[in-house]
């Protein structure tokens, strides 16, 4: 591996600092004993964390968000795998159009989608339905999985599949034993990206969540519009901590490189 020059190291350090600084600050603020958003001095307190758990609706919305992200990311990847297989290797009319259609949610503002879906949900009586909320999220996050999977599948050597076929494998066996393991980094990376995007989505969800299906970001947004206190920081710190723990765990078990890049 080539060694980085001192300039490159400096540049990368600055970029990482720029990206991490807000997270670090919000985590520090979460420990303040004061009533305002301020950095804790010598006194650190867990009072705002305690306050979070005194709001059961925050815990519920967090669980809602987890479920929603898990379900919609899985559906999105389930759709994106066959779709990107067809797009990268098929040779049928309308292939380009299909790819455009799948990626189009990327260019539609979530605000517009939210308003449109609100009207549709009201009309078909889907307000407050977890299933319809998940489907709305699937629409928004599928492009992310598609992008990653198409990238993972282009330049993929088809003769590997031919080799498996020639050795007597059925088409299903070829997919299960050869194709899927080879595109696994794209699949897992795509799922993770979808999960994060769904978990993070607020603009569209504000319009289409009901009290029973409210997600954490929407809950936080609504809380923050009413009162600004360090409890928001505590919630954020909890999410950051949980994400970091998950990433560490994944790295321990599989290695993040293997999940996202495909190296072992």
């Amino acid at each position: 591996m080539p060694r980085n020059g001192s300039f490159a190291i400096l540049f990368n350090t600055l970029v990482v600092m720029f990206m991490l600084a807000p997270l670090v600050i919000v985590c520090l603020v979460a420990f303040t004993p004061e009533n305002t958003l301020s950095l804790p001095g010598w006194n650190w307190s867990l009072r705002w964390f305690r306050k979070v758990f005194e709001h059961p609706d925050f815990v519920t919305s967090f669980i809602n968000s987890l479920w929603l992200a898990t379900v919609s990311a899985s559906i999105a990847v389930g759709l994106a795998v066959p779709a990107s297989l067809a797009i990268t290797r098929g040779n049928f009319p309308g292939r380009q159009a299909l790819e455009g259609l799948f990626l189009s949610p990327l260019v539609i503002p979530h605000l517009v989608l939210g308003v449109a879906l609100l009207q549709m949900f009201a009309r078909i009586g889907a307000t407050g339905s977890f299933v319809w909320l998940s489907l709305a999220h699937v629409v928004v996050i599928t492009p992310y999985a598609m992008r990653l999977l198409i990238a993972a599948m282009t330049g993929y050597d088809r003769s590997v599949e031919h080799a498996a076929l020639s050795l007597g494998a059925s088409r299903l066996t070829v997919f299960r034993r050869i194709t899927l393991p080879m595109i696994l980094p794209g699949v897992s990376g795509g799922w993770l990206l979808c999960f994060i995007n769904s978990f993070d989505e607020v603009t569209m969800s504000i319009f289409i969540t009901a009290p029973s299906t409210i997600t954490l970001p929407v809950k936080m947004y609504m809380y923050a519009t009413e009162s600004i206190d360090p409890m928001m920081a505590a919630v954020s710190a909890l999410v950051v901590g949980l994400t970091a723990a998950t990433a560490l765990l994944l790295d321990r078990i599989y290695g993040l490189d293997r999940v996202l890049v495909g190296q072992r």
Partner: protein
Amino acid sequence: MPFLELDALSKHYGPVKAVDDVSLSVEQGEFISLLGPSGCGKTTTLQMIAGFVDATAGRIRLQGRDITHAPANTRGLGIVFQSYALFPHMTVADNVAFGLEMQKVDRAERARRVEQALALVHLDAHAGRYPRELSGGQRQRVALARAIVIRPPLLLLDEPLSNLDAKLREAMQFELRTIQQQVGTTTIMVTHDQAEAFSVSDRVVVMQSGRITQIDTPYEVYEHPASEFISRFVGKTNLLPPATANGPQRHIRPEKLTLKPAGQGRSDATVVDRFFLGSQWLYHLESPLGPMVVVQVNDGSPAHAPGTVVALDWDDATLRTLPEGSR
């Protein structure tokens, strides 16, 4: 009954005839090369035999069974791909075992045959490695072991050596031939490299624009090419003027010409340039007969310097005439 028979096999893509009316009979145990420039249809022919490309017309019969439209995964053929196509997420042993697993060979027998196949290609020590940890030549041999371990009736090799460097390629040519003779599998190899085709094959099938233009032993293809195209494709050639006014063009190979002191041959010629090839000298000469290419064995005697006048001589028995309009 021939072991493998291609009967008027064709593949058309719209108006383009990628393979046009190809007929070929292969005997059991034979090593056949499909030789031709890129785009001549040799790979498409191989892919039709393998079952990856569906024939437009014609028949493929293997051991008397019509397999023209049989799915690729029912043909049981061993195939070595140009890119090797190893399964990157499996070890060498698992790669080789895959075909046996598909045939539901039991575990103990599988292990025994994998070991045997890896020993045959001298890779027994690398069974636990992953393909990315191997060199190009080693990957090539894993691909070969994976193809022959299922004991296929027919082995198909698609440009198997083209990704190797020159020295390794030559070594692998001999190894390929040795292994093929040991296991006795009927083999069809696609190549654009005439030296490769000549050194390992029993017979060479020359293809050009989707058609077969000559089927012969390597020696016959080189010595008696059916057309000027083949003559130039498989080696260098010199054109001599016709012996009579309306006679046919005459050809002679560079190594059949000899250089003598000026005035002692059939025609004087001036050395324009010379190239040292190690075991041989390659001369470019200018003569009243036209430009000439001559190859002489490097027997230790001093080479002729550019500008030297020498004489060309040849044995009339080495002259070849080619069929009219055979281009």
